[in-house]
């Protein structure tokens, strides 16, 4: 981890997107930010100010285009984290031809946090690790 990655990891702006669904993962992440392990992570609503795109929920054909637009607006270096079962592998709601995609079919995903809902600490750790490791592709959280 370089000194710059270390500094970046201490000030992470997360743009969280609920792409559709029960909002469980995004609420969990919001609650997680109150923990000590969430130090340095803030939420932003502006993709131009964001470092990490945190996507939860089911992605259908309509929302996929907007997600790509949001990703394009983020300045580099940037990372994408897929949170929850719906974004990671679609599982429950992914049917044969109902247009539901996984996040990695839309955007280059740096890290996955699986679970329904994932744990708070796992989410925070994944976001911090993905920045500390220099925005490289990261193992499952």
């Amino acid at each position, binding site marked *: 981890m370089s000194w710059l990655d270390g500094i970046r990891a201490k*000030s992470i702006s997360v743009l969280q997107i609920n792409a559709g669904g029960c909002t469980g993962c995004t609420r969990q992440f919001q609650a997680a930010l*109150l923990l000590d392990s969430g130090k340095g992570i803030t939420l932003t*609503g*502006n993709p131009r*100010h964001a470092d990490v795109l945190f996507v939860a929920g089911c992605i259908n054909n309509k929302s996929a285009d907007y997600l790509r637009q949001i990703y394009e607006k983020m300045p*580099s270096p940037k990372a994408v984290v897929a949170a929850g079962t719906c974004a990671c592998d679609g599982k429950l709601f992914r049917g044969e031809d109902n247009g539901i995609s996984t996040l990695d079919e839309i955007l280059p995903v740096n890290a996955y946090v699986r679970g329904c809902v994932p744990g708070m600490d796992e989410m925070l750790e994944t976001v911090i690790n993905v920045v500390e490791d220099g925005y490289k592709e990261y193992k499952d959280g």
Partner: protein
Amino acid sequence: MLEVILWFIGIIIIVPVIYLAENIILSAIPGQNRSYPIQPIYRLIKHFSKTDLYNRPLTRWFPVGACVFALVTLFFVSAGENIMLIISGLVMMELFILVGACSTKEPYGIMAAQRGISRLTVWSFALMIAAASLYKAAGTLKLSLAIQYSGESILLSRLPLVTAGLFTAAMIKGNLGYFDFGINANTMSFLDTALYTPYGGRSLGFVQLTQWIETGIWLKLISFFLPWQPLISFLVSAVFYLAAMLLNAVVPKMTWKKVMMNSWIWAGGLPAINYIWLYML
């Protein structure tokens, strides 16, 4: 000259300390988001380490221009120069940011710029009246000369409402409390950071730096009207500004038309009343 340089460097150091203090105090309140003590510094470094979003040179270079004007204006204020020079510098700096925001050609960027122009009219009016009042009270527009009056408490006793108006103008510039011109009145929304909204990456770093320097300019300007030693006056104005920043976290936001009304009453009206009163004395 040494004193000017010391003030220049001192203000550049003290202003981030105010933001760090705000960060530390808010973090210590139970139930608030956790952050590192020097997180504002980390954030600034992070912004500078990112690429610039826009290919258009205007959007990329205008924040740099604004930052240069901010530094020049800071030098003027540290040297106690003519207040009109300082006002010109502040206005130019703001115009650079506004034009940069407009040049993004995005609806929210343009809305943010429109809000910025509304804000500009208020605080520039406040500054003009303050300059006229200063000339009436002290017979000079040069701050280093006016400060002689300030030491004998004459300036504050003659210009109390101007001082209050200038402090309100500083709050308007900082989008604090009931003077927040943010479009959506929410600290985390896409629209709320007004003029910051269209900027990202390195440009945002320059805009943030400009805003910090500008805060220092306003605090130093206000300190000229206070009766104590320059350093004490500056620290007093800094403490009041910090209090306003902390209060900002708990007061509800208002619609921008109400904010506009508040701003004109407090930042425009008070200095105007003071100026009229000076003529009646």
